[in-house]
């Protein structure tokens, strides 16, 4: 049998915003390099497509890099590395302008300049937007622009199963061609992981079906630590049942959050006083973690409404009028009409907090490099960290440009310096291939249902590692995940076909989810404080003395992950109080 081998200079895993931006950066840095882009879905299906509200970058005269940095750092409850944030806010405008030059249809002012809108946790308006389909337009612009580079070769619908690590460096990946069930070896002088988040470890999430933490798991299994995994962002406004996101832009344009009495309850949670018009860094424009936590408190006091898919509150945009709704947040109206059968022009929208984003991810430096030579990462799967303990809305789309680009350039430089591949890949490939075939085939005699393991993981993550956590809840969840991992070893594959076998890919995804789940729980268990999105009812205060550090989760075979720490980098902004909706010394 001839082995399907491929070679490229840089291999990018994941073809969403970060992966495509990285590919373009490699092509621009060194046009001689061959670039492989491998993704389990066609690029335009990547989850970047679902981002709605916008992307932050300082471009207006009344704004400043200093403000963007401070909003990001205070929003992240001082867990962000400040050197990374400073670099991020500085490079953001250039990256956004490049995307403009590549054709992104940004919404405009009458004079033709790019328009900006307010967003949660921001002192100034700085969110660029393409109506409320910003991620969709960014992804398609990047994808279509990537098509002009002949040095980019795509492996569409290939699922990466393993990284190739030889001679102490990452030298490519093994990937399952989904259409045929064949494993390919793709050798590469460097690899960039850009596979996005892992919202699917939780039952109720805005994340697409594909967000299963595959890249995080690949790096983790190769010995690279996952950083700050305890920080999981709940977005305060998801539609019940589907988890479809109602963008923060709905609140930025003036939408109100109301409890069952029609009361703007956020005023009771130190988020400012209700004003008829939206006020920056106040009330509905407070940060996501605080808003989601306020929901739980309202729920505990019996002031939320009850529905078939859990408790909810109302998001009211009716007072904005049909014209503003249609111009500024048309997708909100489309989604409500199509999926919830309600018209936000006339009715209030039921919403509840929903898992949205992983602040944590593969530990990288500001160049996108991991601790494994030749392996880089960018986007949601990575943790630089600019997002700290709570990401500011509209920083993630900008992040994938800035750090996608940086990781691409770093990988290009790394690959340019490497002459040869190591030779031992053939035997590794044979070994992995046979291991894979025995585990993920209908002949494995497994009996455990994929859907059942997944459902049980969902329940235990929501119960034990949700918005509020305790030592007891986390320990219980860890026990549950441990036993699910044992059961997964006996997973049942009923589909014997090699052709487009989505049961095999579901099993592969579940194995990644279980690895990610254990890092979330263990990191949360060790962080005995409350900070940003990580709230421990048994340790309700932030504790800078002991925990102004990033957690690093290392994989241990047949055991829970080992947690180590490294200090947060502080440059200009010493840890302070997070103040929203009232005066602060730090203005």
């Amino acid at each position: 049998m001839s082995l399907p081998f491929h070679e490229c200079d840089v291999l990018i895993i994941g073809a969403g915003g970060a992966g495509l931006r990285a590919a373009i950066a490699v092509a621009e840095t060194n046009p001689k390099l061959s670039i492989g882009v491998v993704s389990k879905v066609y690029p335009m299906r990547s989850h970047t497509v679902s981002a709605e509200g916008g992307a932050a970058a300082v471009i207006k005269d009344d704004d400043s890099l200093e403000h963007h940095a401070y909003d990001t750092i205070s929003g992240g409850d001082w867990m962000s590395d400040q050197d990374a944030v400073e670099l991020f806010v500085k490079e953001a405008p250039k990256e956004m302008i490049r995307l403009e030059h590549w054709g992104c249809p940004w919404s405009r002012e009458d004079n033709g300049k790019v328009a900006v809108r307010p967003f949660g946790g921001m002192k100034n308006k700085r969110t660029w937007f393409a109506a409320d389909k910003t991620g969709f337009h960014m992804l398609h612009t990047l994808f279509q622009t990537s098509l002009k580079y002949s040095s980019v070769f795509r492996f569409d619908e290939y699922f990466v199963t393993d990284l190739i690590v030889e001679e102490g460096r990452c030298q490519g990946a093994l990937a399952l061609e989904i259409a045929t069930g064949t494993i390919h070896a793709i050798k590469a002088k460097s690899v960039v992981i850009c596979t996005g988040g892992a919202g699917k470890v939780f039952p109720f999430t805005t994340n697409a079906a594909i967000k299963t933490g595959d890249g995080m798991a690949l790096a983790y299994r190769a010995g690279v630590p996952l950083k700050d995994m305890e920080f999981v962002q709940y977005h305060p406004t998801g539609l019940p049942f589907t988890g479809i996101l109602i963008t923060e832009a709905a609140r930025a344009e003036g939408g109100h959050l109301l409890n069952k009495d029609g009361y703007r309850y956020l005023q009771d949670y130190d988020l400012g006083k209700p004003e008829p018009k939206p006020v920056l860094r106040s009330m509905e424009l407070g940060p996501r973690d605080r808003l989601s936590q306020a929901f739980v408190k309202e729920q505990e006091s019996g002031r939320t409404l009850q529905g078939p898919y859990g408790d909810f509150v109302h998001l009211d945009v009716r007072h904005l009028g049909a014209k503003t709704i249609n111009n500024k947040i048309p997708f909100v109206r489309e989604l409500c009409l199509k999926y919830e059968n309600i018209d936000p022009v006339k009715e209030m929208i039921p919403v509840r907090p929903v898992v949205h984003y992983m602040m944590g991810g593969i530990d990288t430096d500001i160049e996108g490099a991991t601790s494994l030579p030749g392996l880089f990462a960018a986007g949601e799967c990575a943790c630089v960290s600019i997002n700290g303990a709570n990401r500011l809305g509209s920083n993630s789309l900008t992040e994938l440009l800035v750090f996608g680009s940086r990781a691409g350039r770093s990988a290009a430089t790394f690959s340019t310096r490497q002459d040869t591949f190591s030779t031992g890949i053939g035997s590794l490939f044979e070994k992995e291939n046979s291991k894979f075939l025995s585990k993920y085939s209908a002949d494995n005699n497994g009996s455990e249902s994929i859907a059942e393991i997944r459902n049980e993981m969902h329940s235990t993550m929501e119960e034990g590692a949700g918005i509020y956590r305790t030592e007891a809840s986390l320990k219980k969840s860890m026990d549950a995940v441990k036993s699910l991992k044992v059961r997964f070893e006996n997973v049942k594959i009923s589909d014997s076909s090699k052709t487009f076998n989505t049961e095999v890919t579901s099993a592969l995804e579940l194995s990644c989810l279980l690895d990610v789940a254990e890092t979330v729980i263990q990191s949360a268990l060790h962080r005995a404080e409350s900070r940003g999105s990580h709230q421990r009812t048994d340790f309700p205060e932030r504790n800078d003395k002991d925990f102004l550090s990033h957690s690093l989760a290392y994989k241990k075979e047949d055991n829970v992950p080992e947690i180590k720490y490294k200090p947060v980098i502080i440059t200009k902004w010493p840890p302070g109080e997070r103040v929203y909706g009232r005066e602060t010394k730090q203005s």
Partner: protein
Amino acid sequence: METIEIEVFRYQPEKGSDPAFQTYEIPLNKDWVILDALNHIKDHIDGSLSFRWSCRMGVCGSCGMVVNGKPVLTCATFLEKFAPGPVRIEPLDNFPVVRDLVIEMSDFLDKLQKVKPWIIREEEGSTEEEYLQTPSQLADYKQYSMCINCMLCYSACPVYGLEPGFTGPAALALAQRYNMDSRDQGNRDRMEALSDDTGMWQCTFVGDCSAVCPKNVDPAGAIQRYKVEGATHWWKTLLLPYGKDR
């Protein structure tokens, strides 16, 4: 709970058997879309059913299928609408079937690349400043930029079915999206790339593509514009041998 019958197109090439419909009886949950029904089957009845999906919010374009004869996004089509059933679910028309409800769509990706769907200019501007574009200049092409590449228009297109060389509705709409963008100067390049497309002239403005488009892109309108411009371009090359002007 009430139930409904779903008839799903099944094709597994390795089994060597002809395609057939398989019937599943599932709960008629009023909150479910067709895609939820398929996931119910996959998770609880038959793990071997293959289909694509991802975002479940009508923007990733993965889950297009033919439901009771009409190409739709299955995530945006409620199951209850088809009560009491049965509901027949098939892969999109006009594409080879890989397996079950999964079509082979690399032809579209080749065609998309061929129309050069990127901004063409002699030089990219400085990263200090955006190109200016007024809201009305944005409105000129915005509609064509909304294409999610879901392939429903190809499934509905009578010409693509007969003339596989036809660039097709979505790719042509995306070519127009760049042609009409005030920042772009690539109209002529794209016109040349399309000069060998005989299919375009067979498009009769039936408009099936626009009727099924879930994002109101109106590819039929884009194609008609192209034909008018294409005809002008052809006349110019005929009458003005030195007319290589920009």
